[in-house]
């Protein structure tokens, strides 16, 4: 969709029009909205059934040095915390508790004044349960939405509708999984992929021949990529790939490994097939020229698209890799056990992104050709 036709210059979009007043107005409105969201999420304790409190003061009471078996030096810090309850029967009451954290904050965190937390109560005294995190993510979400509407106007609704629809489909898919009692069968993943693709293609392109070409090319490329990845890994007996290390999974890690690849790659492949198809369908030339044009566009965008998924998959492995290295594991061992899975997923997703180039170009050239003949 990235190729654009030349338009005669019409009016400038609103944000390009000269005039500081308009600019300041936009920034002002955005700031007010962000403040309102922040204020709202800082005062939503009434909506929670769990005990919420706001930290009023923090005092460090003890710092002790820690040295572990691998000679890592860290420190354990104890905080004496005074907090005010924000909801429930004892709203307004001041409570005291202690928090202890390590300097490196791997599994705990320091408390600071004004921070909101969840507390649990046992034997009449309160303990820290977890941090309340909705205000930070909420404000950032609001900021992203404001920017999205500022730069894309009403088209933002289309983007958001696609996300909402896909989230709904994803939830239904997970429901299907739970109904199958944890043995996520292959066909649920397949159905999920098909529904994702059709829904997104329909929403972005509409029920047109281009949309059909995009959907078919996306499914074919993803299927081929996963087939190829599965074939290679089976042929080499999964040597060097530690599939049991897939995170948060207790049953059937192999299936979840491929589900992650399919869902992860679908977006990038859809992006690519729609770029190529839309451009190719606009060309009046014969099928061969159209195919070559499609290949040229695809070659340009496949590299950066591979990088998008690669960075997403690899960044997720950082914290654990460093933990492993500092726990006395060798570099080769850590790379293979921790970073390996993310890397393998990036590679198989990349298969899909590369295969999509000829598949989409071919399909689009053929289907667009029929349209001209008809």
């Amino acid at each position, binding site marked *: 969709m990235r*190729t654009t*036709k*030349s*338009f005669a*210059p019409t009016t400038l*979009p609103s944000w*390009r029009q000269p005039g500081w007043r308009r600019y300041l107005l936009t920034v002002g409105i955005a700031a007010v909205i962000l403040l309102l969201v922040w204020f709202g999420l800082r005062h939503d304790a009434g*909506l929670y059934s*769990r005990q919420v409190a706001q930290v009023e003061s923090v005092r460090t009471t003890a710092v002790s040095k820690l040295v572990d078996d691998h000679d890592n030096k*860290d420190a354990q810090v104890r905080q004496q915390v005074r907090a005010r309850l924000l909801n429930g029967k004892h709203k307004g009451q001041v409570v005291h508790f202690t928090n202890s954290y*390590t*300097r490196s*904050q*791997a*599994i705990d*965190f320091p408390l600071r004044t004004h*921070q909101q937390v*969840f507390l649990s109560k046992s034997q009449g005294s309160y303990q820290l349960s977890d941090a*309340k*995190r*909705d205000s*930070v*993510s909420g404000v950032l979400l609001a900021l*992203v939405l404001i920017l999205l509407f500022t*730069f894309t106007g009403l088209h933002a609704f289309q983007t958001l509708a696609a996300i909402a629809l896909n989230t709904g489909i994803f939830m239904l898919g*997970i*429901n299907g999984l739970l109904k199958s009692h*944890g043995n996520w069968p292959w066909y649920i993943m397949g159905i999920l992929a098909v529904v994702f693709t059709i829904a997104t293609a329909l929403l972005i392109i509409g029920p047109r021949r281009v949309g059909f070409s995009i959907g078919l090319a996306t499914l074919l490329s993803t299927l081929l990529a996963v087939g190829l990845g599965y074939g290679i890994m089976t042929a*080499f*007996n999964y040597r060097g790939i530690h599939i049991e290390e897939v*995170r*948060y*999974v207790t049953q059937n890690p192999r299936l*979840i490994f491929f589900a992650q690849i399919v*869902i*992860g790659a679908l*977006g990038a492949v*859809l*992006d690519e097939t*729609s770029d190529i198809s839309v451009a190719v369908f606009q060309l009046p030339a014969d099928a061969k020229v159209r195919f070559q044009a499609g290949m040229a566009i695809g*070659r340009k*965008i*496949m*590299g*950066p*698209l591979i*990088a998008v998924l*690669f960075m*997403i998959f690899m960044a997720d492995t*950082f*914290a654990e*890799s460093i*933990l492993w290295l500092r726990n006395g594991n060798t570099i080769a061992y850590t*790379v*293979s056990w921790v970073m390996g899975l993310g*890397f*393998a997923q990036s590679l198989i997703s990349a298969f899909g992104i*590369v*295969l999509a*180039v000829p598949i989409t170009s071919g399909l689009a050239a053929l289907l667009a050709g029929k349209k001209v003949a008809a």
Partner: protein
Amino acid sequence: MNAMLALIICLFVLLLAVGGKQGTGSFAALMLNSLIIMIAVILMAGGFAPLGVGIVAGMLILACTIFLSSGDNEVAGIAFVASLIVLACLVLVVFTALHLSATAGFGAEDGEDLEGMSTAIGVSFRQLAMAAGLMSTLGAIAEAAIAVAAGMHELDIEADLPGIMRMGREIIGTAINTLFFGFFGGFCGLFIWFAQLHYPLWQVLNNKIFVSEMLDVLFSVLAVILTIPVTIWVARQRAHAVRR
């Protein structure tokens, strides 16, 4: 032979067959990026400040991705300058958000992976989360910047502003789609965990891993949205400079 090596060779063959010279460039970028990431992780584990290492590695990864996978040097130059500006803005956002969010390190759901490990390892996990958050956006920044710069190269920068704006809108739309699926894919297992154990919505929305993941998605979307006007601005500045 090991399965990973077979996958790498297969990708190389595919890239070569489909992309020719440009394909080998993309492959070289991928391999170099892997090397940079590995060195960055080793340096972070070796005691260097993770955020600093992350920023430097991030700049290198942007350079590799942009210059090796886009054939045109003028397009690549504009895209690179624009992506550095976006990276600088993003450092501020990531730093502020992760300073307030208490999402660094591991969550309760990671427990099994941490068994038998010492977690008091003297490396700041908060900085590590900042570095990871920044790095996960790099691909998206590079992709959007190249797309805008290449598109503007074909259009008339002065006369066709509405066309450029329309292109920018479309890039934002498809990039958000890519990111959404990418992150959903990466954390498929976690969502199944939540559903299986019937986490209530409030707990999911405040869960350490979920929020840190959601922040990463938002950083990426924010980065892509910022990349569009910044790249347009850089390309126009360069066009003006050339004319003078």
